[in-house]
């Protein structure tokens, strides 16, 4: 045991000497590994970041929420033409459900459209306008930077009032002061009564409340879309996650009654849940993960080939040195160990530099609101893969060195 430790220690010292003696070449060799490790670490942290924002975004939808809709959002088992042929869900369905449902703590209808939103000279295009009623706020966890959600009076009366997301507020009112201003949505005037705090994350896209405008639902039907040609969504919030299933069962029962379905008829509506979105997202993230790691793995592989190449050159160049070492007593194992630890050390140094590059890179990326942080997992990952790469790419060259015949090696010019 003591002997092996001694051999490892001496082997490492000899390797370090050799690396220092060939600084320029060692640096160039390391470059491949630096790039490889940096990209693997950056990619894995980026994927982690994406995944995290997805999860957070989904969580911001609320795990207690159900969405009764004509369309199944995530379920691909039902053919789209079957869903297309379903009857629209209308305000009448909503009212009946609202009267019958006991389980939910909040119920609100919603209908949407896309319009340009303007304030004086500034405008933002293709903004998702959600029409709903005053109860909507209770189906969400939205919080306000300023003002409030529209109240029952404004909602029932279909007043021209709007609640705007933080992104829209920033774009239309870069210096603040959105409250009580009159904005134009699709050419119609609305008064801003509330500005939301920054909520979601960019990964949510259309779902992101930051990029939404909320108005009383009557306005949607009055100005933007026909009441008869459009289906609404019924937003339902269950009383805690333990009641989600009961709420869902009740909703199915009530909706079947409301829609007048016979016992042998299939549901002509879908109850959507965050879970569906989650599994969709997990699939997407999985694909990104595989693709990302394949690409960065390739970079690492190229780096490893570079190391192997240089190690072969190094063995060739140092044939005489190997001969000398063998003549004065180095065994095959010693030579093998020397060259493997040399390439392992080069790779480890490269890996650590790559890690540093990745950390700096992630800080730069984080400036652009992309959530990446290099954590301890990434550090372990970087060290492990660089060591493994070093040992693997050093193996063949080291073996070539170890099996050199001392007589031939000494004669080599």
């Amino acid at each position, binding site marked *: 045991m003591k002997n092996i430790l*001694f051999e490892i220690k001496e082997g490492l010292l000899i390797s370090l000497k050799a690396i220092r003696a060939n600084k320029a070449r060692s640096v160039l060799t390391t470059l491949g590994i630096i790039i490889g490790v940096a990209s693997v670490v950056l990619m894995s942290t980026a994927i982690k970041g994406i995944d995290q924002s997805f999860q957070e975004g989904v969580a911001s939808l609320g795990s207690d929420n159900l969405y009764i809709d004509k369309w199944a959002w995530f379920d691909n088992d039902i053919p789209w033409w079957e869903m297309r042929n379903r009857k629209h869900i209308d305000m009448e369905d909503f009212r009946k459900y609202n009267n019958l449902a006991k389980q939910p703590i909040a119920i609100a209808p919603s209908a949407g459209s896309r319009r340009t939103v303007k304030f004086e000279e500034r405008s933002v295009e293709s903004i998702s306008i959600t029409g709903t009623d005053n109860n909507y706020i209770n189906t969400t966890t939205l919080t306000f930077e300023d003002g409030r959600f529209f109240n029952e009076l404004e909602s029932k009366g279909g007043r021209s009032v709007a609640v705007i997301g933080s992104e829209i507020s920033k774009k239309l009112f870069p210096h603040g002061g959105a409250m009580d201003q009159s904005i134009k949505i699709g050419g119609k005037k609305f008064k801003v009564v509330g500005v939301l705090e920054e909520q979601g994350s960019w990964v949510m896209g259309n779902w992101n409340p930051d990029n939404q405008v909320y108005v009383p639902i009557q306005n949607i039907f009055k100005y933007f879309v026909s009441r008869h040609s459009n289906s609404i969504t019924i937003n339902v919030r269950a009383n805690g996650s333990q009641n989600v299933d009961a709420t869902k069962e009740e909703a199915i029962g009530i909706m079947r009654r409301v829609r007048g379905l016979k016992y042998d008829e299939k549901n002509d509506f879908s109850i959507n849940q965050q879970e569906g979105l989650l599994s969709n997202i997990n699939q997407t993230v999985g694909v990104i993960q595989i693709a990302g790691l394949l690409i960065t793995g390739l970079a690492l592989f190229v780096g490893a080939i570079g190391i192997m190449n240089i190690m072969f050159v190094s063995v060739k160049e140092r044939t005489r040195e190997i001969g000398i070492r063998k003549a004065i*007593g180095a065994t095959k194992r010693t030579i093998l160990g020397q060259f493997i630890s040399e390439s392992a050390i080069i790779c480890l140094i490269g890996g650590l530099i790559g890690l540093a590059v990745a950390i700096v890179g992630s800080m730069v990326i984080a400036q652009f609101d992309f959530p990446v942080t290099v954590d301890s997992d990434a550090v372990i990952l970087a060290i492990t893969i660089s060591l493994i790469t070093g040992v693997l790419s050093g193996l063949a060259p080291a073996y070539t060195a170890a099996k050199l015949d001392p007589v031939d090696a000494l004669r080599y010019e």
Partner: protein
Amino acid sequence: MNIIKIEHIAKIYQVGSEEVHALADVSLKIDKNEYVAIMGPSGSGKSTLMNILGCLDTPSKGLYDFSGENVSQMDDNELASIRNRQIGFVFQTFNLLARSDALHNVELPLIYAGVSGAERRERAEFALEKVGLADRMSHKPNELSGGQRQRVAVARALVTNPSIILADEPTGNLDTKTGADIMQLFNEIYELGNTIILVTHEEYIAEHAARIIRLRDGLIEHDEIVKARYIPKGSIAK
């Protein structure tokens, strides 16, 4: 007592379809504290013999017994260990590690022998002092003259206290004066009780030895004692 005993050794190389007998049939014995010169023109097999004696190579046929150990049957690792512990090499081209200083070069065989730390350093320094390089220990080979380089090589050969010193044309790359100094060094080492085998094709170099073995075409042509063996002071001759 025989340190080296070889019997009917042959080394055969396959060159194309032809067999080349670098050594045809060689038998010899070398005792402790002998100073032997192996001579012969190029192609006589003296390098091959030296490689086999130095355990760098194994014979195709025959028996090689080194201090009672059968070398001809050894594997690579055992051979490496014999080279490390029993044999000190001095080469014509010095064969020092170019990027390491003199001290590290001399320490190297001790590293492979598993000697660590302070003891290793001490022994290497002592060996360098013995060859007169106490003030050149941290110099790299390219900062040393040819004679100094060969002295480092001699120190490296001596540092493990080997049973034999094997020198292959040790003055071949040196001018006459420096060569003479190195031969003087060998004489001193010999007089300290070491066994030296010298391979050379220069008569005046071989004259330093007490015994001259002449090879021709892979066979021993002549083997004679030319001087009385030096008996180190204080030791009892058999």
